[in-house]
Structures are given as C-alpha cells and as structure tokens.
C-alpha cells in the first residue's frame, strides 16, 4: 500500500464548529458502513446534486477525516485506508495536467465513476426506504386468518389382481426349488469320509490292489459321484502314504494307482 501524502497541518486550524462536526463524525465511525458510506455522508456537506459533486473537494474532506482519525488514534479498518490512498492518488491526478502518452483511464473518468457509485448508493438507500415504507403483509394488510388446509385425500388404490395373488402364492410354494445354488452334498464324497473308510479297509490289503476297487459300490455308477469318490480316496491314500501307512505305485502316467499296506516294522 503506497503511503499517502497526508495533509497534517489541518487539525489545529479548524473552526470550533467544524471541529465538533468532525469529531462527531469520528466518534460515529462505527456507524459507517464502509468508506463509500462515509463518502456519501461527507458529500452531503456540499449540498449539491450528487451528479455535480466536486470529487476533488470530497477527496480532500475524506483525507482530512482520515488524518483527524489518526491524530485521535482511532483504529480504522483497512478499507478506509485503501480508499484514502486511492483518493490521494485521484486528487493528485486531478490537480496535475495529464502526462502526454499516458494510457489508462483519465482522472475525470475515475472521478465520474466515484460520483456514479455515490449516486447509485444514495439511490439504493432511497428506494430501500421507500420499499420499507410500503404497506407490508402482517403489518398493514393481512392474509386469511383461518386458512382451511386443503385436505389432501390420497386415494391410493392398490391394484392387485387375482393373478398377482396366485403368482405370489405360487412363488412362495415353489421357493424351495429356487433356493440359491449351493454345492449339493449328496454327490460329494469328502476326503475325511474317504480317510475314515480307507483306514478301516487297509488292514485287509497286504497285496497291491487297484485304488478304484476301494470305492463304495453305490459311488461307482453315477459319473459325478464316481469322480468325487475317486478324488477323495486318492487324497486319502496320499495322506496315509505321508504317514507311512501305505505304499503307492503307478506304472505309467494316467495308469492305475495301486496300493498296499506298509509292513509294520
């Protein structure tokens, strides 16, 4: 933030009345709604149409106010100081002839815009007051005191037909057939079962014999059952071989697997 060039000589030269006015303004600093609001208040002292206001004069008033506030050590919000800096800049631009070849908006444009902003804010205040001065509902005019609520009768007709009913019943009665798929245990021979079975049978097998001959009779016909039983028994005898209970042999790949009881030494 550029340090503005404060006019520091003013405070002691103030006439008593002006001084009181300035102090009143300063005491009231909390009452302002920002720098634009303060500028609008200051502009009232010019007693002219806002369109013909002297922005230069306004800038001087504002800068004087800021200087006084600082002399009185009143804390000012940053935006007041930003405005002061900008107005100091504007003031110098308004006082000095424009530099040739300078681009950007002219000082007059900037001043005109400030005047526009003040006029607009002032106009908004006026219409806000007019708006609030209008007749208002609940204060000047009134709605119906006993509104009758529209009774919302929802006629929900549930359409179920006899067919729906029967389908539903059929669905319940046949649900067992539609239960989610689970592995059907009827056709599964577990390794535990095979191990149990083989442990009992192995005592009778002193000679090499084919593994398939150990399968239970009722597990040899249905292909699904035979596969499951074969796998279970094979796993079982592997387990027994690991434990040193049986010897296993297979003559060639995919050939028959033979087993016999290992001699107890």
């Amino acid at each position, binding site marked *: 933030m550029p340090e503005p060039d404060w006019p520091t000589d003013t405070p002691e030269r103030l006439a008593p009345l002006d001084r009181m006015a300035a102090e009143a303004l300063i005491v009231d600093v909390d009452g302002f709604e920002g720098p634009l609001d303060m500028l609008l208040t200051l502009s009232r002292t010019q007693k002219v149409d806002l369109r013909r206001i002297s922005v230069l004069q306004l800038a001087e008033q504002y800068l004087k106010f800021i200087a006084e506030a600082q002399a009185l050590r009143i804390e000012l919000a940053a935006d007041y100081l930003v405005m002061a800096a900008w107005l100091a800049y504007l003031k110098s631009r308004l006082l000095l002839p424009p530099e040739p070849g300078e681009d950007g908006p002219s000082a007059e444009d900037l001043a005109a815009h400030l005047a526009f902003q003040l006029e607009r804010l002032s106009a908004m205040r006026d219409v806000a007051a007019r708006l609030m001065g209008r007749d208002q509902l609940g204060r000047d005019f*009134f*709605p*119906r*005191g*006993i509104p*009758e609520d*529209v*009774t*919302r*009768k*929802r*006629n*929900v*007709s*549930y*359409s*179920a*037909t*006899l*067919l*729906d*009913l*029967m*389908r*539903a*019943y*059929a*669905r*319940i*009665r*046949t*649900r067992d*057939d*539609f*239960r989610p*798929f689970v592995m*059907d245990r009827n*056709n599964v021979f577990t390794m535990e079962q095979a191990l149990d079975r083989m442990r009992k049978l192995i005592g009778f097998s002193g000679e090499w014999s084919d593994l398939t001959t150990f399968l239970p009779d009722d597990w040899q016909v249905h292909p*699904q059952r035979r596969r499951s039983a074969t796998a279970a028994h094979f796993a079982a005898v592997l387990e027994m071989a690991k434990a040193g209970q049986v010897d296993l042999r297979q003559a060639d790949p995919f050939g028959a697997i033979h087993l016999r009881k290992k001699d107890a030494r």
Partner: protein
Amino acid sequence: MTETFDPIEKTLFEAPPMGEQERMIEAILFASADPVTLSEFTARMPHGCDPAEGLITLRRRYEGRGVNLVKVGDAYALRTAADLGHLMHKETFEHRKLSRAAIETLAIVAYHQPVTRTEIEEIRGVAVSRGTVDQLMELDWIRFGRRRMTPGRPVTFVVTDHFLDHFGLESARDLPGLKDLRAAGLLDNRPVPGTLRGPNEDEDPATGQSELFED
C-alpha cells in the same frame, strides 16, 4: 384497567358511514383466526360503530357467494359455502402396485386362513413387517380372526368380504388350488442345475395361464 370515557365526548366522534363499517367488519372477519364476537367488533372498531347492523348487511352480501358469513355460537366467521366443500379436498388418485411382501402375505392369509403371524413367517421364510400387515388391514383385505387356542393365544388373520369382493371371489374356497396353479403353469418347477430329477417330474403340462384366466 378500564378507560372511562365521558359519554358526551363519545358523540363528538362521528361513527364512520355504514359502508365503511361493513368494510371493517369484513376485514376483521377475514383476518381473524377465530370467530369474532360482537363485543370484539365493538372493541376493535371506532367509537359509535354498530357492528350488529353491519354484520346483517355483510351477511346478505355474502349470500349465495363462495363463502358465507355464519354465526358460530355467539360469534361470527366467514366459512366456505357448504356446497363447495369438495374444492377443499385435493383428491389424488394413485394406482400403486402392492409390494411383493404385501401380496405374498395376503396370499398366505387367503390360502391358509385363519393364520397366525408366526405361521405366515414360517411359510414366507422371512419376518412379516408391521407395516405390511397394517397396510393390508387398512385396505380392508385382511382382518383379525379368532385367537388360536394354543399357548400365547396368538391372533389369527383372515381375509375380509371386501377382499373377496375385490378379487371377484364368492368365498376363499374359490381360490385356485395348488393343482390349478400348477396346471396354469404358475408352479413350474424349474430344476436347480445339477439336481437329479425324478422320472415323475416331467409331467408338468405346459398349460398357459391364459387358459385359466380367460374370461
């Protein structure tokens, strides 16, 4: 605390013309949340007003209109004309499909009545929500039957005459049996993959529902 006025002073203020008084009565009646008594009118209107007279003319003015000025006890109010009451009901017609839970519960009640809630749950295999039963009761399709003479004396549910009426049945016995359902193809036993089928399971004839439900 009552203010006392000099009776002579009162007459100094002339009462507003009757037309104005009528307007005042109208506005007060309109905005008031409760019926307004004569003394309230008198208290709220300027001195010298005669609300009784204004009420008579206002009542006449609203005769045959959409709202009428009625006397409620010893107070007055504006009320919707009786013949227009139907405008105050917003009737909406909604057709909704009964939920699956509801239709299944209804079916079980119809086929197994009188049936307890526990039995319904056993047949459906899931708990029956209170809402489902309430809905069916509200629809007047099921009602409470006699209590079962078993421990706990559970209530039973039966279907109502309204149910029979709705579904075009003379009695619950007219409900198609399982055999009919099967014949109608509603009970086709689709096999679970991998299950063994007995030789008698292929008998299911391919009769379409149409046959049963035509006409």
